[in-house]
């Protein structure tokens, strides 16, 4: 009777537990599962150049500026340029705008770009040489971006530039007070650093085009849209009538003079505003920009318009020239028509129509036409170009203003990059569908050359873009914008071509403070929230480096979704469990 007694091993194990719960796979309870993956920030999805904004902001907020610049240079060779002249679609899309105020992304980009003076070019690694030769016609932002990314991909790029120096529109179209030449030249240092052949003084005419197609493995046309259509009115032969781009080119080359006292600029884009402001700087006293539509339809950036107004440029809306009036071959003025908005046209804007009997004459010593250029592609005027820059000719690609689409520096940089990726796909005989599926930031924005080179998916390539509702603002505190621009006085500005604006304060402090405001949407910064708030201890893996997101333990994760909800930056989302 005593034998069975009292706490034999079997009885003990009935009284107390013998193991933990690891054999209990609660993952089977799950309906939804978290998906960890870098997403496109709303700003990045809106950036035509495909700048990795969240990524470089992360480094910059830590004061790791060199790394920040290097990240930026993976996608964009010209941050110092974009940081000055870009109309900031990123800031318009910034999720932080709904919280307090959009992040001053352009200012940070500009500061980083300028830090290149200190850190050097900070170029990303170049892939092994392919031996393929690619010709790029044009060294504007599109051509440069294209050549840059081709070179990074290991191709041998040769750029043909009609002018004496590389830069295209950046050099002849954008005045130095907006883009100082030293900032431009510094960034163009990559041409030598990457061994890009630069043939200046080589205008790509039809003959050269044919030769390039013959001699090179691939050819990229980035020849811009420089053909002025003219006003198409009487008096264009009068002295004192200028075409905008030609006027800007002369002004930027320091070759313009004698513009007269009273100048009328016809047009509503940045070229018009630039021309007007250059005219002021060349001695004009009374400069008016005349636009046939209303203020709200004006394509020029608000910032440029405001600066121009401060400098004394007048704006007249709903007016269009009917003819130029001259005396003895010399322009005297313009006959103007009042315009009124008519039916909407294809762009959705209301087409201006002249008001009968509204004609009057305005005095002008000079008239500058700045209505926007037209492409005259030497590779074929009627080429069909798709949005990736591909044409019917498998070795010919088109980008920049020569291709359809928006005409900003950032778009040109993005277009050049897309064309470079397409050329690379062609040269390496890659699966084009696969590449297209993986490289678009947010699935619909600019392409990521880094993703392409590294063979990884661009942030949010599957179409996931982090919007404000995906951001958990509980983890951010309100902070006013740190990066502000200070400007020269209007009097000082018009006295020459000195750069009008500068970012206030110490570059490092400002860049860091402003970058710290960035939510870094879609970017895992290893904050640990998912780990700490997981009731099931099912977050595994730690971000080894910035940019890597953790994963989850499918054996135990019950799919509660707290990790996704508490991710400050929208890196995690809940998706239907595969059944």
């Amino acid at each position, binding site marked *: *009777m*005593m034998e069975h*007694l*009292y*706490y034999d091993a079997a*009885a*003990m194990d009935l*009284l*107390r537990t*013998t193991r933990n719960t690891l054999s209990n796979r609660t993952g089977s309870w799950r309906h939804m599962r978290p998906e960890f993956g870098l997403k496109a920030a709303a700003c990045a999805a809106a950036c035509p150049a495909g700048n990795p904004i969240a990524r470089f902001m992360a480094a910059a907020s830590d004061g790791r500026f060199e790394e920040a610049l290097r990240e930026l240079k993976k996608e964009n060779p010209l941050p110092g340029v974009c940081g000055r002249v870009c109309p900031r679609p990123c800031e318009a899309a910034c999720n932080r705008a709904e919280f307090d105020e959009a992040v001053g992304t352009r200012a940070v980009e500009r500061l980083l770009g300028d830090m290149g003076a200190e850190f050097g070019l900070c170029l990303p690694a170049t892939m092994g040489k392919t031996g393929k030769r690619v010709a790029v016609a044009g060294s504007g932002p599109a051509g440069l971006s294209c050549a840059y990314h081709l070179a990074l991909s290991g191709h041998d790029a040769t750029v043909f530039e009609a002018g004496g120096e590389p830069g295209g529109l950046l050099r002849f179209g954008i005045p130095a007070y907006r883009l100082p030449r030293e900032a431009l030249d510094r960034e163009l240092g990559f041409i030598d650093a990457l061994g890009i052949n630069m043939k200046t003084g080589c205008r790509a005419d039809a003959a050269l085009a044919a030769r390039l197609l013959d001699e090179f493995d691939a050819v990229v046309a980035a020849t811009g849209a420089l053909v002025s259509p003219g006003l198409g009115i009487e008096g264009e032969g009068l002295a004192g009538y200028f075409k905008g781009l030609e006027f800007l080119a002369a002004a930027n080359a320091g070759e313009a003079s004698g513009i007269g006292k009273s100048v009328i600029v016809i047009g509503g884009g940045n070229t018009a505003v630039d021309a007007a402001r250059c005219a002021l700087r060349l001695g004009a006293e009374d400069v008016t920009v005349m636009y046939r539509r209303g203020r709200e339809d004006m394509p020029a950036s608000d910032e440029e318009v405001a600066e121009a107004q401060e400098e004394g440029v007048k704006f007249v809306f709903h007016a269009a020239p009917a003819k130029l009036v001259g005396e003895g071959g010399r322009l005297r003025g313009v006959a103007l028509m009042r315009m009124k908005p008519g039916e909407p046209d294809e762009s959705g804007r209301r087409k201006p129509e002249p008001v009968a009997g509204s004609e009057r004459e305005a005095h002008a010593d000079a008239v500058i036409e700045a209505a926007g250029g037209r492409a005259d592609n030497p590779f074929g005027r009627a080429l069909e170009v798709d949005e990736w820059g591909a044409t019917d000719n498998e070795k010919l690609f088109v980008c920049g203003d020569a291709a359809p689409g928006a005409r900003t520096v950032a778009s040109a940089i993005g277009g050049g990059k897309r064309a470079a990726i397409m050329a690379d796909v062609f040269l390496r005989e890659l699966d084009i569908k696969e590449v297209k599926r993986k490289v678009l930031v947010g699935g619909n924005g600019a392409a990521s050359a880094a993703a392409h080179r590294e063979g990884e998916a661009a942030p949010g390539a599957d179409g996931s873009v982090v919007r404000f509702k995906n951001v958990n603002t509980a983890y951010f505190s309100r902070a006013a914008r740190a990066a502000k621009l200070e400007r020269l006085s209007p009097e000082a500005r018009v006295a020459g071509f000195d750069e009008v604006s500068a970012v206030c304060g110490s570059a490092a402090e400002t860049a860091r403070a402003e970058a710290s405001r960035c939510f870094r949407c879609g970017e895992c910064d290893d904050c640990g929230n998912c780990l700490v708030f997981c009731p099931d201890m099912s977050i595994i893996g730690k971000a080894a480096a910035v940019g890597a997101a953790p994963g989850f333990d499918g054996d135990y994760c019950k799919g509660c979704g707290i990790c996704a909800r508490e991710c400050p930056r929208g890196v995690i989302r809940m998706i239907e469990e595969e059944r």
Partner: protein
Amino acid sequence: MKEVMMGDVAVARGVKLARVEVIAAYPITPQTIIVEELSEICGRGELKARFIKVESEHSALACCMGASMAGARTFTASASQGLLLMHEMLHWSAGARTPIVMANVNRAIAPPWNLWSDQTDSLSQRDTSWIQLYCENNQEVIDTVIQAYRIAETVYLPVMVVLDAFILSHTSEVVAVPEQEDVDRYLPPFKAALTLDTNDPRAFGSISGPIEYQKLKMARHEDMMGAVEVARRADIEFGEIFGRKYGIAERYRCEDAELILLTSGALGGTAKIAVDALRESGAAVGALRVRLFRPFPADDIADAIGGAPKVAVIDRNLSVGAGGIFAQELKAALYDRERRPAVFGFTGGYGGGDFTPEVVEKIARRALEMDKPDSPTLWEAIP
């Protein structure tokens, strides 16, 4: 060393000798003297125990259970309503196999208010898996407290030492107090087989399915049944050291008896006086005092009854709707035996009622006169 002491004091002195480490108790008449005496003993530093002055009996037992799980030798005491308040924890502490020892002073259950002896409080805990020992006098009280730890810590089941309210608790008697060194020899320090140990983290009492639950409960039952032998040996070994032993069912002049008087508690002694008188007058009557009620020592009792054709059970308790509890237990224990005497169940003497030797004698004579009991419960008592 002999002293005159009350039953409650004897309990406290037994606790001291057992070197109890944690005490948690709540006062209730007629147990109060136990907690007062222990407070004095601990206060004087004669016992290095933590005495937790809890806010209820329920907490008292819960507290002991926690302390026992953490490896300490523990004690509590209660009575009546207090014991009933403990009821949940009685089950829990036994299920957790904590070898707690408790003294329960049998007191009637209200309403109406009544302070005097009635075993119904402890007997209604018979299904809680507690071992129960009923004492006849204060000497047995102090000795049984010491034996209780020996039994509890062998079978890992808690033990209740039961004494009658006032009849023992407040009655001063001459008691031989065991020597500490003898007690230490008899009762080594408590070494818990299972404790809450941070070096071996386990959970005790986790939700279990029917298979584990039934196995555990059956194991507890087996161990409880085995406790008959453990209690017997604990008593024998106690006798070897201290020269006193009680057995688990104490026989008195049972040989060739026509009638056995079965009693428990302090009534046992009174019954012996009655037996002497009855034998004197020629009636063949013996007495049997059940000391161990749980586990119920059915074999020992059947053996003691032997061939006696009649047993009169005197129950100082009443299970309303069934009768005296010892009588029921006895009938159940004898049912499937070959020799089944007629069992006469008498109840009384509770709530302040008294059994004198004369009353017990009367009960015996009545049982001797009758062929069979005329009702399940034959009531006899002096108001």
